[in-house]
């Protein structure tokens, strides 16, 4: 029998009163992809961080090739060939891509490395200049660079913590293929995700975590619904694909319009080039595009976080092009930012404090508790610091701004990418309900599925231009066309 490359033995980890891991034991064999599946806050990331030496377990240990170890730093984990790609790209913003990777590999940014790196990025279809500094990259691009960085270190165990979850479909396939290839060559992969379908696609074995405990280990070929049931522990589960078409009263006046907008990126190149669009009250308009095609800049320009070079932005018919973001928010434009960690929440404050800031009117304790309950933020204690929450739960806190206000216009940038399926449906429903009750919703996304699910109109953005709008009751049927336009236009 093959010996496992790594075993975790009876791990316990508590954070204050919260038990993150409760007697977790698992084995990972060489050449296999072990999927660790669980909803937001089930302890997946904590497990990954212990394996990578970022956290110290309260009890239990790790065994590598039969020798027990406990890592006290990532450096030790790395020396054993364990590498982590996390849901927060670990890159230094002020350095270039090449410098970041050289730093990580402890080599110099040589010509050879530059060439190798450019090739890998090209293979992934990301023609990014490796001398570009990291802060100019979008979240998705950073994620990808981070993955490439780790692969270059030639790991024995690759821990992928939700890192591929948010990549656009096309890139994700390429990435998953690389991961599979890595496993076929004998590497071990621990693939952490909350997406059941994606898990079933890639995994050889599945360990399901719920509230810090392993509730089941399944072999390849397991039924998706079995996994779901193990994950959520309840059968009354709503699938994301039940679309509920709604009849909306037509509104004529646009709540948000953008006219011939031009926005530059950090290098003075136009990131948004002559974009016009309008969103009426009751509408859900989605702007879809592969990352790096200008959605980020478009969203930021509309909300006022980025300077507009040319063109106009109108809110309820008033020009707001040069207003500070805070003023626009006060006028009823609510923006859900791309990066929940840096812009979505104030990480040092408590959940309650964050929510108080989001709400444009006074919030009572009851309202706060209702929002927390509805979003199933876990742990549900409002007085806990946001820094202690898992990635998905941090995004939920950021999204609570949608529940705490009655916005005129909502702009949401990939609002569901860190959420498990249940929360994802909740957020999409919330956006839909907001539209039904008279808000205008603009969704900026890389995910065709969620766009098709709730939108009345979909624009596809390529190289900073909206190349085509799709409209009509049966957007579903355009899915393939939309994908084609996104990729090839």
């Amino acid at each position, binding site marked *: 029998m093959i010996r496992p490359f790594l075993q975790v033995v009876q791990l316990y980890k508590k954070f204050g009163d919260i038990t993150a891991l409760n007697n977790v034991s698992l084995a990972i064999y060489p050449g296999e992809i072990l999927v660790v599946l669980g909803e937001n806050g089930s302890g997946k990331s904590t497990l990954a961080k212990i394996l990578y030496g970022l956290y110290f377990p309260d009890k239990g240990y790790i065994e590598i090739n039969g020798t027990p170890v406990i890592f006290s730093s990532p450096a030790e984990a790395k020396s054993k060939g364990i590498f982590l790609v996390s849901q927060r790209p670990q890159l230094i913003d002020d350095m270039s891509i090449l410098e970041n990777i050289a730093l990580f590999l402890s080599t110099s940014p040589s010509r050879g490395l530059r060439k190798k790196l450019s090739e890998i990025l090209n293979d992934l279809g990301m023609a990014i200049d490796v001398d570009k500094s990291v802060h100019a990259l979008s979240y998705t691009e950073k994620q990808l660079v981070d993955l490439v960085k780790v692969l270059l270190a030639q790991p024995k165990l690759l821990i992928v913590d939700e890192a591929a979850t948010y990549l656009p479909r096309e890139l994700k396939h390429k990435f998953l293929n690389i991961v599979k290839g890595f496993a076929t060559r004998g590497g071990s992969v621990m693939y952490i995700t909350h997406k059941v379908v994606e898990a079933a696609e890639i995994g050889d074995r599945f360990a399901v975590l719920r509230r810090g405990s392993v509730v089941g280990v399944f072999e390849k070929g397991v039924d998706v619904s079995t996994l779901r049931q193990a994950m959520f522990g309840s059968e009354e589960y709503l699938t994301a694909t039940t679309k509920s078409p709604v009849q909306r009263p037509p509104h004529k006046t646009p709540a948000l319009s953008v006219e011939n907008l031009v926005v530059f990126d950090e290098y003075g190149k136009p990131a948004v080039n002559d974009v016009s669009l309008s969103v009426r009250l009751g509408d859900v308009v989605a702007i879809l595009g592969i990352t790096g095609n200008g959605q980020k800049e478009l969203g930021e320009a509309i909300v006022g976080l980025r300077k507009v070079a040319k063109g106009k932005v109108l809110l309820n018919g008033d020009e707001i092009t040069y207003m500070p973001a805070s*003023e626009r928010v*006060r006028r009823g434009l609510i923006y859900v*930012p791309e990066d929940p960690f840096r812009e*979505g929440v*104030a990480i040092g404050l408590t959940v309650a404090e964050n929510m108080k800031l*989001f709400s444009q009117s006074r919030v009572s304790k009851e309202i706060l508790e209702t929002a927390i309950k509805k979003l199933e933020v876990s742990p549900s204690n409002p007085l806990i610091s946001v820094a202690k929450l898992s990635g998905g739960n941090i995004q939920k806190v950021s999204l609570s701004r949608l529940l705490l206000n009655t916005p005129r216009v909502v702009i949401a940038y990939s609002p569901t990418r860190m959420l498990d399926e249940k929360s994802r449906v909740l957020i999409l429903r919330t956006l839909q309900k907001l539209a039904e009750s008279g808000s205008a919703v603009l969704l900026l996304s890389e995910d065709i599925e969620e766009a098709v699910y709730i939108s009345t109109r979909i624009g596809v953005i390529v190289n900073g231009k909206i190349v085509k709008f799709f409209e009509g009751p049966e957007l579903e049927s355009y899915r393939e066309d939309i994908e084609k336009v996104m990729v090839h236009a």
Partner: protein
Amino acid sequence: MPKVAIVKRELSKTVATVAKVLVILLGLLIAIALTSIITGASMELAGITLLQGFLNLNVFVYISTLLPIAVGLSTAFSASAWNLGAEGQLVIGAVGATFIALYTPFGRQEVVAPLMALLFASFLGALWALPAALLKMTRGINEALTTLLMNFIAYHMTNYLVKGPWRGRAVYGYPTTDMIPVQARIPTVPGYSFSWYVVVICVVIALLMQLFLYRTKVGIALRALGSSPRFVELAGISSKRLFLIAFLLSGALAGFAGGVKVLVYHGKLVEGPIVGSGYGFTAIMLSWLGGLNPLLLIPASYYTAALYILSFGLQIGSAAVGDALANAIVGSLLAFILLADFLTKYRLVIRWS
């Protein structure tokens, strides 16, 4: 080559607190040792002096100046507004209080005079902080530099006033103003140079600031500003306005402290460096000592004040050391406490390979 790694660690809150308290106590021992070495007094004497320092009512002299400044600076620092100009704002506050007391008709009205003087001192302190804030907001000029430089301008302006137009007629040529009218002075405790009124006001300011920072929306947003101005903007609160509020509050509280120095302690305006005497800088350390938390600043300022008394208590007859010793002790203690803070969050792993 030994390899050194810095590794994060999780300690429970109690352990971390106990560790900090231990360091603070250890700091006292170091303070005693340092004082005895420098002043040549025996360790025993230094120890007794320190103990007396904690029991000496004179701690309130220092608390009434240090506490308000540190409370203001904590507010500014939690918003990442790096106001290093409290010293200058204090000095200008003192100028403001003197102006009201000596050169306006309010100066001879009981109760009104000290109140007006303190208000005007706070106003001038805020005003002195304003240019740096505006330069930062409009031109992006580093506020740490500008506020630091403004300190020297404040010193020299005050020197000019007391040597020139404001020099007193009854001071035999010394560079000070005349004494301010009795009505403008705040009554002190007999035999001491501090006032209970002021001490109470200072504590109330700390309590109010605590409520402001943790209970009001603007206060909470101020604390968030440090980590992300964009987050604050997206919550519908102007980050520029918050920055300005944090800056002006810290300036006003430093100015207030300057007013207190004139109305309670000096009774007249003296040369800039004497009015300031480094309190504006000590308060920077103090605010970190108190973890930028107004409530914790109350015990922290008491602790710092006792250290001041220790160094002065042993310096009678050796004035050459000045307040340098107090500052050196407080500074090294702060370094220790920051180190302790670091060591409760991280640990060093050293490997020989």
